[in-house]
């Protein structure tokens, strides 16, 4: 951010991108925070699909707490007063999209592959976040899981100097159907709440839950 002819100029030259914006403001705050991984390279979808490195089997009527990684993007906001406006978003993670379901009825999702951890692993906080996922199997049979799909508009991200995190839940309704949701609480005490892009844009998210109906 530079002062130029009485105004402000925001410049970024990295990741094969050159961004330069003249800001018509004389004062304001800058906020850099992790956000939902939905904006790069293009805002095509609101869904995030995390594929597990290994298939997970959950015992009948069991509840398990697991840890997954997820991609993050970093947003640069400017605020002249109370409202924050995004001026730039960047990411250091590899981008990939996938289809969940069939081409006729399915949905395009942001794709990410993660190991399944039983304890909190260490991750690079500028590339990946850590998700605590509580999986509840309400069925009387074992259920196998290969992926989790989330409506990422409802993500509740928290961050500290060492970690970006969120909490989510997955309720296995049948052997082929599950409901995912986010919980609005930090993984550790003292973590700050992120300002998600969709919250900053004041978009009303009516249904942050997602029903996985095209298989688990």
């Amino acid at each position, binding site marked *: 951010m530079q002062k130029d002819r009485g105004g402000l100029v925001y410049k970024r030259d990295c990741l094969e991108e050159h961004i330069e914006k003249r800001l018509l403001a004389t004062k304001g705050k800058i906020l850099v925070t992790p956000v939902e991984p939905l904006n790069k*390279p*293009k805002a*095509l979808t609101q869904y995030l699909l995390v594929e597990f490195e290994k298939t997970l089997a959950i015992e009948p009527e069991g509840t398990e707490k697991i840890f997954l990684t997820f991609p993050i993007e970093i947003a640069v906001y400017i605020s002249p007063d109370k409202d924050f406006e995004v001026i730039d978003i960047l990411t250091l993670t*590899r*981008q*990939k*999209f*996938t*289809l*969940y379901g069939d*081409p*006729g009825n*399915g*949905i*395009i999702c942001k*794709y990410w592959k993660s190991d399944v951890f039983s304890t909190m692993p260490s991750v690079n906080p500028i590339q990946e976040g850590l998700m605590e996922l509580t999986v509840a199997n309400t069925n009387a049979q074992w259920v196998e899981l290969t992926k989790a799909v989330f409506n990422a508009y409802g993500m509740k991200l928290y961050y500290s100097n060492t970690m970006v995190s969120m909490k989510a839940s997955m309720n296995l309704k049948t052997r082929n159907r599950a409901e995912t949701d986010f919980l609005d609480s930090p993984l550790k005490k003292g973590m700050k709440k992120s300002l998600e892009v969709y919250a900053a844009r004041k978009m009303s998210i009516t249904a942050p839950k997602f029903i996985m109906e095209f298989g688990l």
Partner: protein
Amino acid sequence: MILNKVLYHSVTVFDLITAALIVIIAAVIAKVLSLYLRRFLKEKIVKEHLEIIAKVVSYSIIVIALLMVLPILGVRLSGLLVAGGIVGLAIGFASQSIIGNLISGLFLMIERPVKIGNAVDIDGTAGIVEDISIIATTLRTFDGLYVRLPNQNVFTSKITNFVANVARRFEYVVGIRYSDDADKSVAIIKNLIEEHPLALKNPEPQAFVDNLGDNAVNIIVRIWSPATEWYGVKMELLWKIKQALEKEGIEIAFPQRVVWFANELRGWEGKRSEPRHPDLGENA
């Protein structure tokens, strides 16, 4: 006074002016309200739904105004119902094509094979759907032309909607030389697809030797991409594949023909050990 002058039955000039004013005011309100709705809801709901809401509101106001005006003009609605059948028959004969378009328009709105903003091909005309009105469907062709198609034609024509499904597949045929390593080529191509964010992970892309052609080993490459992005990905990836293969010494084969001479060419004798084009056999 002229305002009280009776024109027909008990309808006066004042009634006529009142009726005209009601219709004009209703039309203005309908226009203003639909404009306001378009602005207010622009970023809140999808364009296609917005257009339908705006049209329903606009037409409803005008229909209500007309129903209010008819009694002022001395037209009894109960009488209209009796006359409706006969009038309807007359209108039907007089405006067959308009009614046909109107009914087709209603069916198009119910069935919704195309939506506003979709890239479509209707009866050989390809473009983006700009508007679906009650009578006609408007397309903006990919070269920027305005095309108005009567709804009756749209409804009875073959429609291809390029974005009705969320993902679509495209393919290339990459011909490499017989002397090149096909497995290595397939690996390079798959790696390149994997690196492209908009080439979908699932359905899995395919790259395999499809046939041994006259001039090349043909590798078929099939890639799924979001329906809104496929053309950009298609344009981008083919050249990248060519460059990546060439970087590894694999070349795209060109048409060639091996000519056998009954008698060796003069001056060729004794030169068999000289280096030759890799695709040409030793006996050529």
